[in-house]
């Protein structure tokens, strides 16, 4: 149990989590709910109750795709997507092994590409992702087709002010 989890997540997400009264509208409309170990309404209750360990080790926080359907329908105007962001950040900051490492591998590869070029270079980003996730064979046909259609450029394009972009990463601790 962690008494200050509610305060911490409330302040980092900017969402009034304490207002959730379990109407379950979020879970009814969630396209990913079948993949969650705890449905969104339960995630909200667990934050209120300070169930930090269970939350930070959960699959739910990584399977949320931030479509914002839940937040859009919440009668208390609580956006759950930023709540999930706050929980994900806390999971990584505390060095807890994420329940879905493949998703983390993708996002890490993506931001590494931004850190290098200022923009995403799909070819190298996808190679980094394949390497990190150790998933070398999935969707090779899709990748090849995209390449043949001229949708995966070989040469990267760079932002000009890379010094500022590095500073943004540094400030975010990434």
């Amino acid at each position, binding site marked *: 149990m962690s008494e200050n989890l509610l305060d911490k997540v409330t302040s*980092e997400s900017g969402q009034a989590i304490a207002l959730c009264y379990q109407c379950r509208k979020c879970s009814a409309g969630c*396209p*990913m709910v079948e*993949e969650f170990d705890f449905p969104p309404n339960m995630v909200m209750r667990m934050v209120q109750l300070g169930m930090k360990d269970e939350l930070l080790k959960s699959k739910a926080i*990584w399977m949320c*795709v*931030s*479509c*914002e*359907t839940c*937040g*859009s329908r919440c009668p208390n105007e609580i*956006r759950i997507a*930023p709540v999930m*962001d*706050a929980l*994900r*950040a806390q999971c*990584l900051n505390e060095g807890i092994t994420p329940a879905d490492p*493949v*998703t*983390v591998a*993708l*996002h*890490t590869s*993506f*931001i590494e*590409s*931004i850190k290098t070029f*200022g*923009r*995403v270079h*799909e070819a190298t980003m996808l190679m980094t*992702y394949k390497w990190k*996730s150790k998933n070398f064979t*999935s*969707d090779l046909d*899709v990748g090849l*087709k*995209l390449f043949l*259609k*001229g*949708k*995966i*450029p070989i040469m990267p*394009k760079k*932002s*000009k*002010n890379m010094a*500022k*972009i590095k*500073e*943004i*990463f540094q*400030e*975010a*601790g*990434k």
Partner: protein
Amino acid sequence: MGKTFSYYPGCTSHSTAIEYIEASLAVIAALGIELKELPDWCCCGAASAHNLSSSLALGLSAFNVGEAHKKGSDMVIPCAGCYGNLAQADYVLRHDPKERRRLEKQLDFKYDEKIRMLSLVDLLALPELRPAIKALVRKPLQGLNVVCYYGCAIVRPAAITGVDNAENPLRIDSLMADLGAEVSDWSCKVDCCGGDLGLTDAEKTTELVNKIVDYAVAAEADCLVTSCALCQANVDIRQQRLPILYFTELMAEALQIGDRQRWWKKHFNDPSKLF
């Protein structure tokens, strides 16, 4: 219209959404609107940065909003995902004075409340453009039954996107009707395609996409129409029943402008049989 806007291309403008950008730029030029690409821009953080650090996501998007403020014009952002991120950063800058001061200092710009971030739907569905678009139609899309698929990023959260209706948006529907298409009502306008899940979980993405396409087929649609590069990629790649076109590709077809056949070759489900 004769107005000039700043323009944020986004990373997919050179890659997975190249046909969207080419079609959009052709339509915008035909309407006499000038777009000026930002002199410098970086990735908005896409659907990744916020998962790892919300301050990184805010910083990257605010960098681009800041560049637009340096140029002093409203900015058009064709990619739905980029628009969603930049609109969120703009919302923070507009409503949170402390964050605004911090970001203005870090990114060396002065926030001007008059400057707006616009999605391409925000721009092309402007009421004052409606007569101009209708007047330019050379081949009405008669007999083409479309369903408009808005997805997430230009819709939610409504307080940030300013969408007309978060459950039943109508602006792309009206545009398509103006081009002469038959627009069907259907249930999946604002459903999620899975987003980045397309890269990590093909099976689940296919399940989400199949539900969307089932409903489109039930509405007897010939194709889906979208403004989002991620929606287009996921729905086009993960099913073989219907083509999915960008709304500006259909505008270009009705206006008979641009290199349309070359754009169609970039799709997984060939749309050429529709025309």
